[in-house]
């Protein structure tokens, strides 16, 4: 079977995982990785009950789900964005020691240029940190092929294998050729004589760390099969990875003279020193094109064999994503002639809340309540989701946003230093992601903090996936120890503004932890009917006399 399919790069990874015979896919949404999971989820649902696709409450949970599945001998895919790997890092780094049974592939989508992220960290560095292989495709076809290869490699070396994409490839749509789909048959669970490998008490872990290091030469060999040395006649060479490789390959089509440059095409890590030496022996100067960190550049530079140029010496801008223009500038190729329009001041069209979004009503209530208690200037800690848009004009309602789930602990920390009032604003799915332990500590600390949970019932920003905390936010809050008298559920609507302000004011004046749940479904998910089926079932359950009624605070 050799069908040609049209898909995004990140979808090609999902498709390959399906064809590699995975039993399950797990993930947490995050741009630009989300569609990878959604694609394989759709394939899994269409294929019947033999496989599962499950969003997790966060990336660490997703990773552990995949690892548990691997333990049983089945192949699994786990997907996340780059900063999600920070959350899953504990699991990822330690799974390097346990190793895997069924093949385990980690799709990580980096976001150079920070199109929709808070940093541009480089996941290749984290793979290196964990002593694990990383494959870096440059085209949609490679995204598919490398993922298939990653599963085979994962089982051959018994380690998790990362497939690293960047935004431009994740969201590049192109045709690719598929292979036959393997059935989700496992290799059998971890055998009895290897159980100790999976028990990372120090005595086992020491042994497993030695084992992991002993696998490094085989990882380098596997990577070397994908990395290519292309000879040339010039004394200036190019080392390119990922999209750098894609851009340079295409520039050769447009500027055939570039074919004279010796090339090191990097598609997989860890790098093999012999390949690096062989390349450097051919050149006096090297230009390095890679996304995010100067990883390759540093390695080549350390060999001291040639003048290595790239992000560190300014030949390539130190930050931001690569583009054909960036490569051409570094290569000394002139700009193209282009049209110009008469000068006119073009205001930025910034993203903003959808018309009628409940978040806006909630923020307006919070801001008015802060004015009412005489603290219009109070600093409010925000979190990550659509509601982060409130950091901008005209609302300017939040004054600190760091990482998923941070808002609650930031507010508690500030309260413990004497800030009054201390307010955190967090979405329902971010609360499920990593706000839960923070709220538990908030209650324990005794600090006076008000936690505003904006419950739109979905993960709004990434395309309205159902929230893991769906219909459970107040039960979770009560369960974590917030007294029922300090928990209020409100409806963020203009018509309820006055009562919402009053309730918020009361919460701001309360001692200890107070929680306001502003619940109104995301307009987009309503429009698309994402929760229609769920709500119908819920109504039926509630109408059923033998079912346990919903707990109301």
């Amino acid at each position: 079977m050799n069908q040609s399919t049209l898909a995004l790069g990140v979808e090609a990874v999902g498709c390959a995982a399906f064809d590699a015979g995975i039993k399950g896919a797990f993930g947490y949404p995050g741009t630009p990785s989300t569609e990878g999971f959604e694609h394989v989820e759709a394939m899994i649902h269409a294929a019947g009950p033999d496989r599962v696709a499950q969003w997790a409450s966060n990336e660490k949970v997703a990773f552990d789900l995949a690892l548990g599945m691997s333990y049983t001998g089945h192949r699994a895919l786990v997907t996340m964005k780059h900063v999600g790997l920070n959350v899953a890092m504990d699991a990822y780094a330690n799974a390097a020691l346990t190793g895997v049974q069924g093949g385990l592939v980690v799709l990580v989508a980096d976001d150079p240029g920070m199109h929709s992220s808070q940093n541009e960290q480089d996941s290749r560095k984290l793979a290196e940190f964990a002593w694990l292989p990383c494959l870096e495709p440059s085209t949609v076809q490679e995204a598919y092929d490398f993922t298939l290869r990653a599963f085979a490699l994962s089982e051959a070396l018994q380690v998790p294998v990362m497939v690293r994409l960047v935004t431009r490839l994740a969201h590049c749509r192109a045709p690719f050729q598929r292979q036959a789909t393997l059935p989700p048959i496992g290799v059998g669970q971890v055998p009895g004589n290897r159980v100790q490998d999976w028990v990372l008490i120090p005595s086992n872990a020491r042994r497993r760390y030695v084992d992991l290091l002993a696998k490094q030469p085989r990882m380098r060999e596997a990577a070397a099969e994908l990395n290519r040395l292309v000879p040339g006649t010039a004394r200036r060479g190019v080392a390119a990875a990922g999209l750098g490789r894609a851009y340079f390959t295409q520039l050769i089509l447009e500027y055939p003279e570039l074919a004279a440059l010796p090339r090191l095409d990097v598609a997989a890590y860890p790098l093999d020193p012999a390949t690096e030496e062989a390349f450097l022996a051919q050149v006096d100067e090297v230009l390095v094109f890679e996304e995010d960190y100067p990883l390759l550049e540093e390695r080549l530079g350390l060999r001291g064999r040639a003048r290595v140029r790239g992000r560190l010496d300014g030949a390539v801008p130190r930050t931001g994503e690569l583009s054909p223009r960036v490569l051409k500038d570094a290569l000394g190729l002139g700009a193209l002639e282009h049209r110009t329009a008469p000068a006119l001041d073009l205001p930025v069209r910034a993203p903003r809340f959808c018309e009628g979004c409940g978040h806006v009503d909630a923020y307006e209530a919070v801001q008015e309540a802060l004015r009412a208690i005489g603290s219009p200037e109070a600093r409010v800690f925000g979190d990550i989701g659509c509601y982060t848009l409130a950091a901008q004009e005209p609302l300017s309602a939040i004054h600190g946003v760091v990482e998923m789930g941070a808002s609650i602990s930031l507010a508690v920390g500030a309260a413990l230093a004497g800030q009054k009032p201390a307010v955190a604003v967090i979405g329902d799915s971010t609360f499920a992601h990593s706000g839960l332990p923070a709220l538990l500590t908030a209650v324990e600390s005794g600090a006076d903090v008000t936690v505003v949970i904006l419950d739109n019932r979905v993960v709004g920003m990434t395309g309205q996936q159902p929230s893991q905390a769906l219909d459970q936010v107040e039960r979770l809050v009560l369960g974590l120890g917030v007294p029922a008298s300090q928990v209020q559920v409100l409806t963020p609507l203009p018509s309820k503004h006055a009562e919402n302000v009053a309730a918020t004011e009361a919460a701001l004046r309360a001692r200890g932890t107070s929680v306001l749940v502003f619940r109104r479904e995301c307009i987009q998910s309503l429009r698309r009917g994402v929760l229609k089926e769920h709500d119908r079932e819920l109504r039926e359950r509630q109408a059923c006399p033998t079912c346990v009624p919903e707990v109301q605070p």
Partner: protein
Amino acid sequence: MSATRIHGIVLAGVGGQGILSMAQILLEALRRSGLHALQSEIHGMSQRGGSVQAQVCFADTPLTSPLIEEGGADLLIALEPLEALRYVSMLRISGHLVTAEDPVADMEGYPPLEDVHRALRAVRGAHLLDTESLARKLAHKQAGGMAILGLASRFLPVPEETWREVIAQRFEAKGARIVEKNLEAFSAGRQLLPEGVEA
């Protein structure tokens, strides 16, 4: 080895206008015409009513770069005039511009519409389309985008039949009437240029 000519298309608009869907139609139509094509798009926050841009490039050999550079676009298609202006510098000297006249002006600091239109008309070979009156004429609220595509299609090496096939398939699930309406809008746009003008 001689240099390969790579053709670029930039699509610009506002979140929710259907830029990404239009880009997919273009990609499919080019592919069915035997060309190698790639499309690039940015998701995420850009969907919340912000500027949205997609790019499509094509050639007669396989391509690997999802991005084109300034001066690399043969065609700029815009569903909003201010968004069109943002990307004029992407156009080659010989490039064409096809844009809707009707603004999405729900933002601070939108320049006077006459200034925007004047600036666009100053771009040689620009085609501005009054999508609102066209939509009224065709009694089809969403006709604008398809008409813009129809007009733009005159500058692309895709047979009319292929366009119609791709559009029909795209809207198939929504029923025969919607397919008809979209094909009608496409044709209306395509016929706005006299024969031979694209040369």
